[in-house]
């Protein structure tokens, strides 16, 4: 009985703490969304109330047109989808080779692949920008898409899953006369769907959110900007129009928030793929 009341008080205390922390964590998002929905595009009245009343969509609409958000979103979607498809495809192929084929030096070659995971974008971007330039890919979709089409992480992940398939499955299939392409397409890939989904989601998010590379390869060409780099144009308006930024932010962040609510589990799986030992 005493334990129960203690538990009751503790529970209350815990809930309070949770609520307070949740408010703190959410506050920035809340404040920005509120600002986007409350005030007009160039209204500077403050101190503002933090209550969700007197809402209007005018700021968001203005941000949409001024910031060319429709085009930005389209570009982001296109680039992210293409990169995701590319990464999944190249990872499937390479992982198949490592998991199911025998060839000389397979081990060392795989280790070399793994080593490339260590190389961060910061080092490669400098030169890649010049490479893209010499290919004429600056300010183009190819420039945004092609460099990201292969992923050592993806190869690692898919190979891992493929290796867990029972070898007897491959043997039975080869007895049935199943060739490599058919086995990959009809057996290996379908059986790896959860991991492929996580990889796809992860890649999509990473591409959507990318800032460094797009900022280097797209220079001033509004037609090809992604959401991440195009958004800052709204920032560079005069300061009285700061609310436009919030409007842009709501539009830019909304798709990802929705995706994440829908695909929570796959995201967690993708993030923890390398992290949790157990």
């Amino acid at each position, binding site marked *: 009985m005493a334990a129960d009341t203690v538990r009751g008080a503790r529970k209350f205390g815990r809930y309070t703490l949770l609520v307070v922390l*949740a408010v703190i964590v*959410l506050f920035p998002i809340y404040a920005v969304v509120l600002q986007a929905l409350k005030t007009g595009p160039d209204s500077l009245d403050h101190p503002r109330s933090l209550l969700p009343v007197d809402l209007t969509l005018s700021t968001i609409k203005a941000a949409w047109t001024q910031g060319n958000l429709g085009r930005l979103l389209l570009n982001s979607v296109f680039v992210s989808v293409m990169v995701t498809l590319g990464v999944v495809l*190249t990872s499937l192929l390479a992982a198949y080779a490592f998991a199911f084929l025998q*060839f000389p030096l397979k081990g060392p070659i795989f280790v070399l692949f793994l080593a490339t995971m260590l190389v961060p974008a910061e080092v490669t*971007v400098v030169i890649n920008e010049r490479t893209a330039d010499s290919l004429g890919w600056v300010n183009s979709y190819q420039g945004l898409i092609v460099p990201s089409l292969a992923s050592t992480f993806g190869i690692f992940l898919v190979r891992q899953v493929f290796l867990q398939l029972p070898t007897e499955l491959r043997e039975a299939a080869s007895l049935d006369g199943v060739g490599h392409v058919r086995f990959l397409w009809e057996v290996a890939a379908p059986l790896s769907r959860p991991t492929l989904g996580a990889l796809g989601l992860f890649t999509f998010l990473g591409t959507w*959110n990318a800032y460094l590379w797009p900022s280097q390869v797209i220079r001033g060409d509004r037609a090809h900007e992604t959401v991440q780099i195009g958004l*800052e144009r709204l920032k560079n308006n005069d300061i009285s129009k*700061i609310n436009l930024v919030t409007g842009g932010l709501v539009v830019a962040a909304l798709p990802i928030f929705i995706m994440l609510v829908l695909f929570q589990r796959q995201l967690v799986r993708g993030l923890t793929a390398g992290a949790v*030992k157990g």
Partner: protein
Amino acid sequence: MKRRLRDVPWAVVMLLPSVVLIAVWTVYPLVKAVQNGHLRCDVTGTKCIDAGWGRYWDVFTSTEFQHALGVSLKLMALTVPAGLVLGVGLAVLADKHLRGIGVFRTIFSSTVATSVAVASLVWFVLLQPQIGVFADLFSGWFPVLKNPGLLNDPGTALLAVAFSSIWANLGFTFIIVTAALQSVPRDLYESAFVDGAGNVRRFTNVTLPMIAPTLLFVTVVLTTRALQTYGEIALLTGGGPNPEKSTTTIPYLIYGRNSIISGDLGTKSAAAVLLFVLSLALALVQFRGLDKRVHYGR
């Protein structure tokens, strides 16, 4: 043997796309960057001479690089411990079977949905001097919020960037640590409870050792991200405020629009390679140093 070579054509075809892409966009740039680091160029980057490996030392000891190094390390010190403690704290707090805990977990994870650009711009808006929300709410305690604004005061600009980073990384840390916590077998806790261990002791004797590998992973990731901080700087402060350049991290030095070496290919490459080496060294140190703790456990 015949069997070994039978698969080679297939292997070549299947590996080719990845090999070509990685060779062109990862391996080649690395090699070229290391080479370019030898170059000493004029300001426009057009006239360069090969100054050998010594050039790396020159770049490393240059005032610009040293300053940027200091900023990067400061940022690391600000964001990594705080981010770790907050992430673990939230995860532990939310690791209980309370009704509605899922909502809280989703909220704490939510910042993982923010991109660098989004998170930075959110804080940019909030930290606006005079008219930003934080200026409205807290300028009574912190006048600097209003004048000249956290982002414009050389003493506080890096702190502001740190806030933005910590907040943005919170979701990631939370998710990973939560997953690790959930993989701790419950009967370890029960056994400790039966032995009379209280909450704190259970945490230090059961939880921490069990999630130690994950904490190491998170630390390495947070450190790497801190060293790679570019977008936040570009969007929040542009490397300034000047003339102190209080927020010019090494990546910003390399890529920033306002960076003074932005045209100098040789120095950029050298700085990038130095950054890579630094990150690698730090990661190794962390693995070695903390790994001992992880395995022999407290």
